[in-house]
C-alpha cells in the first residue's frame, strides 16, 4: 500500500518533468507543424546556461531560471530565423531533417566547447522532503515546484492560445499562413513569438530538471526530447493540455511498469501503450477526431 503511494508519487513526479518539456514542444508543434527535434537540445542549452550562472556567477535559482529562459528564447528565435524560416514552404520531411540537423549542431557544438563530460549542479534549492506513513512514503518538495509550475504554465498557455488575440493569430498562422497575412497578421513575428515562448519553456525545463537531477551533459536532451515528443503525440498533437496530460500519462505508465517488475521492458511497454492508445484514439488522448470534409 505504502509502496503504491510511493509509486504514484514517483509517477507523477516523472510525468511532471515530461509534461514540462512537452509543453514547449507542443507549442511549436501546434503552430508551425514542425517536429522540432531541436527542442530537447534547447532544453540542454538551458540547463548549461543555468549551470554556468549558478556555478560561476553564483546566482540564485530564480535569477538563473529567468536569465536562462531569456537566453533560450533568443536562441529559439535565432534558430527559427536561420534554420526554419528558409524551409517554411518545403515538405514536412525536409523540415524534419532540418530540425535534426539543428539538433545535432547544438549537441556537438556544445560538446566541442564543454566536452562530453557530465557536470553537476550546485545545490541551489535546498532539498526538503515531506514524509508520510512513518517515513515510508517520501515526496521531494522540488517535485511539487515542478508540478505546480507545469500546471500554471499549462493554464497560462492555454489561455493565451485560446483566448488572446495573439494566441488566435498563432492558430490562424498554423492553419493558413497566406490567409493569415491577408488578415493583417505578421506571420514572421507570430512565428518568432511562438519560438520564443516554446524555447523559453525549454530553458526553464532545462534549469529545473538540471537542478532536480543534479547532472547535465551535452546529450541530455535526446531522451527527454523523444519522450516529450511521445507525450505530446499521446495527448494530441498541438494541444496544450494534451501535452501535459500525455506527459503524466507517460510518466505514470513507465513507473507502473517498473513497479510491477517490468523495469527491463519499461520503455518497450511505454511505446506499446503509446501505439495501442493511438490505435484506439488516432488523434491522441485529448484530440478530437476530425474527419476531413470533402
Amino acid at each position, binding site marked *: 500500500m505504502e509502496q503504491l503511494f510511493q509509486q504514484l508519487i514517483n509517477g507523477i513526479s516523472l510525468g511532471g518533468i515530461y509534461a514540462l518539456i512537452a509543453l514547449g514542444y507542443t507549442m511549436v508543434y501546434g503552430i*508551425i*507543424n*514542425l*517536429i522540432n527535434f531541436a527542442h530537447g537540445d534547447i532544453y540542454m542549452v538551458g540547463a548549461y546556461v543555468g549551470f554556468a550562472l549558478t556555478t560561476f556567477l553564483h546566482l540564485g535559482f530564480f535569477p538563473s531560471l529567468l536569465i536562462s529562459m531569456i537566453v533560450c528564447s533568443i536562441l529559439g528565435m535565432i534558430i527559427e530565423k536561420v*534554420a526554419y524560416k*528558409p*524551409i*517554411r*514552404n*518545403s*515538405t*514536412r*520531411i*525536409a*523540415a*524534419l*531533417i*532540418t530540425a*535534426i*540537423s*539543428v*539538433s*545535432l*549542431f547544438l*549537441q*556537438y*557544438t556544445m*560538446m*566541442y566547447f564543454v566536452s562530453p563530460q557530465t557536470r553537476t549542479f550546485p545545490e541551489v534549492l535546498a532539498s526538503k522532503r515531506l514524509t508520510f506513513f512513518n517515513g515510508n512514503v517520501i515526496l521531494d518538495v522540488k517535485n511539487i515546484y515542478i508540478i505546480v509550475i507545469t500546471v500554471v504554465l499549462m493554464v497560462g498557455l492555454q489561455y493565451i492560445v485560446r483566448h488572446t488575440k495573439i494566441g488566435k493569430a498563432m492558430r490562424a498562422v*498554423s*492553419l*493558413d*499562413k*497566406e490567409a493569415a497575412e491577408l488578415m493583417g497578421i505578421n506571420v514572421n513575428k507570430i512565428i518568432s513569438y511562438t519560438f520564443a515562448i516554446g524555447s523559453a519553456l525549454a530553458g526553464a525545463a532545462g534549469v529545473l530538471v538540471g537542478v532536480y537531477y543534479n547532472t547535465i551533459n551535452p546529450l541530455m536532451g535526446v531522451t527527454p526530447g*523523444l519522450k516529450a*515528443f*511521445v507525450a505530446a*503525440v499521446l495527448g494530441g*498533437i498541438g494541444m496544450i493540455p494534451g501535452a501535459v496530460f500525455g506527459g503524466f500519462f507517460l510518466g505514470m505508465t513507465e513507473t507502473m511498469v517498473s513497479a510491477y517488475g517490468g523495469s*527491463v*521492458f519499461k*520503455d*518497450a511497454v511505454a*511505446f*506499446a501503450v*503509446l*501505439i495501442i492508445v*493511438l*490505435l484506439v484514439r*488516432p*488523434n*491522441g488522448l485529448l*484530440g478530437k477526431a*476530425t*474527419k*476531413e*470534409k*470533402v
Partner: protein
Amino acid sequence: MKRISKGKILTFFGIIMFYIVIQLLINVGIIDSYIQLNIVLIGINIILAVGLNLITGFTGQFSLGHAAFMSIGAYTSAILTAKLGQPFIVAIFASGITAALAGVFIGIPTLRLKGDYLAIATLGFGEIIRIVALNIDYIGGAIGFNDIPQYTNWSWVFAMTVVTVVLIRRFINSYHGRACIAIREDEIAAEAMGINTTYYKILAFAIGAFFAGTAGALYANYFYFIKPDSFGFMKSIDILVIVVFGGMGSIVGSIIGAIALSIISLFLQSIPELRMVIYALILFGIMVYRPTGLMGNQKLKIFRKGGKNNVSA
C-alpha cells in the same frame, strides 16, 4: 512501348560491365579491404534507402522505424547462418520474409494513423524491437551476436542491390505503384478511384521491409558482429536522411544519396571534434538550398505543411 529498347540493352551491359570491372579490381588488389568495406556499406544503404523510399517517398507513409526491419533481417540471418548452419541464400530470403511479416504487422496500424502519429508509432515499434532484442539471451542480448560467418562479398551486395532497385522500379511503374503514389497525393481521391488504400499501404511496408531485411542479412554476414543498438532510432534517421538527401520519390536519388553520405562520412572520420557539427551543417545546407533533395523535383513534393490541405490532422 517497345519491350526492349536499345537504351535498355546498353544499361544492362553497362551494369554487367560495372560488376566485372569492380570484381577484377578486387582480384588484383587495387580495391583493398577498406574500399570494399565501404562499397558493401554503400550497397546496403542503397537497399535500405530504396525500400524506405517506397514507403515514405512514394506511398507517403512517414516511417521512423526502418532500422527495425533491418535488425530483424540481420538477426534472422545471424541465427540461420551462425547457429543453424544454413546456406546464405536461404538466410537472405528468410530475413526478407521475417522482416516483411513485421512490415505487415506495423503496416496494419497505418489503417488508422496518419502523418506524425504514424511516425511516432513506427518509431515506437523500432524501439520495442530494439529493447526486446536487448533482452533475448539466445541472440546475445545487449552483449551482441558475435562470430557470424562472413558470406557477404561484392557479388552478393551487387546482386541484391540491383535486384532491389530493379524490382522496386518495376513496382513503381506498374499500376500498383501508381496507386501508392496516388495515396500519397490524396488519400480520399485515391479511395474514390477504387484504390484499397489499406492494402497498398501495407504492401508498401511489406516490400520496403523485405528489402530492409535482406540488407540486414548482408550486413550481419559481412561485419561478423551485430548488436541491437546498431539498429536504433538514429539508424532509422540515417536511412531517412539518405532518402531525403537524395530526393523523396527518386530511386536514383536514393542511390546517389547513399554514396554521397558515405563519402562525406569517410572524410569526417579524421576530424572527430567537429565531425557532427560539420555533418549537421551539410545536412542543413542541402535542406535549405535544395529542400527537395539532390534528385528531387517539385513534382514529388509530399507532406506539404500548412496551407489549405491542413484540414485534418
